[in-house]
């Protein structure tokens, strides 16, 4: 028999995984659509040259270069999605705060931009150990980002930072908000032994206990 709180947790996690994968696959599809058009255009230019029209090699070079660039960008999205998927299937009970911050910010970027909000974070932030399952920490960060974006006006900026203190790591979400952001649900904070503190219209802090040695964050 599933308890109501377990049922809620399962539904929230499924919703989270659904939204993250939908957003990532949307980006992948856009990348494929661009590559499809560019490669077909290259093919059409070649076909026209066979029919006698002058072919500008520079134009073809630019097109091929763009396809190559786009392959790289789309590959990055696939890698992020793969990393995200493994955060659940490997059932890690520890993860690295810097990695979680970067991964969730990267995966939230498209959603934020559709609302006219930009995200910034320090991608080179040294990794920090955290207690808590990777997928739960990711959900907590994702939920905070959603709350921040919902409370931001179009054109707004949101910054993410990490603060390390003895025994704790804090994710700082900052922006110029039009309302107070929502906190992650109580059951999630309880599962992480975490705390969330609203900072008025500036943002919120999500604090979780730091882990010791032996952090497993790579696959």
């Amino acid at each position: 028999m599933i308890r109501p709180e377990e049922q809620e947790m399962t539904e929230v996690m499924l919703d989270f995984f659904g939204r993250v994968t939908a957003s990532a696959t949307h980006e992948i599809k856009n990348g494929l659509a661009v590559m499809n058009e560019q490669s077909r255009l290259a093919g059409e230019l070649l076909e026209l040259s066979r029919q006698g029209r002058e072919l500008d090699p520079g134009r073809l070079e630019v097109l091929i270069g763009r396809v190559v660039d786009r392959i790289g960008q789309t590959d990055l999205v696939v890698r992020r999605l793969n990393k995200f998927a493994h955060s659940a299937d490997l059932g890690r009970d520890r993860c690295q705060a810097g990695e979680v911050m970067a991964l969730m910010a990267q995966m939230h970027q498209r959603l934020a931009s559709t609302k006219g909000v930009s995200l910034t974070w320090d991608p080179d932030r040294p990794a920090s150990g955290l207690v808590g399952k990777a997928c739960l920490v990711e959900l907590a960060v994702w939920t905070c980002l959603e709350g921040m974006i919902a409370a931001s006006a179009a054109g707004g900026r949101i910054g993410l930072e990490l603060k390390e203190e003895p025994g704790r790591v804090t994710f700082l979400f900052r922006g110029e908000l039009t309302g107070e952001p929502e906190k992650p649900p109580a059951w999630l904070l309880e599962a992480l032994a975490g705390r969330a503190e609203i900072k008025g219209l500036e943002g919120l802090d999500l604090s979780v206990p730091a882990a010791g040695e032996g952090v497993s964050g790579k696959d």
Partner: protein
Amino acid sequence: MRILLIDDERELVTTISERLELRNIDNDWAVSGEEGLALLRRNHYDWVVVDLKMPGIGGFEAIKAIKREQPGTRIILLTGHSAPEDLDRALVLGADRYLIKPVDIENLLAVMAPAGQKE
């Protein structure tokens, strides 16, 4: 036939535009709903191809504005995914058709051809 392409993916619209030009099809492109609607106020278009998810004025809002500005202009919604409720909403708002990315240009042109208009 004159077409307006609206998609925040610049490389996509510029490449589709170039492919249409190779076919001698008159077209303009815009990388936001706002830019697209500004073009629509200055020019007449037979067809508008508009992306669903864009920052600022998105596809749904754009469809409503297009129908207000140029009721006779026909609209194709371009989308990266196929959530049935989104597609139904687009059709209710006035889109004539929707196409899922990646779009085959011959398919796009077939939809715009007179026979396609009857579908």
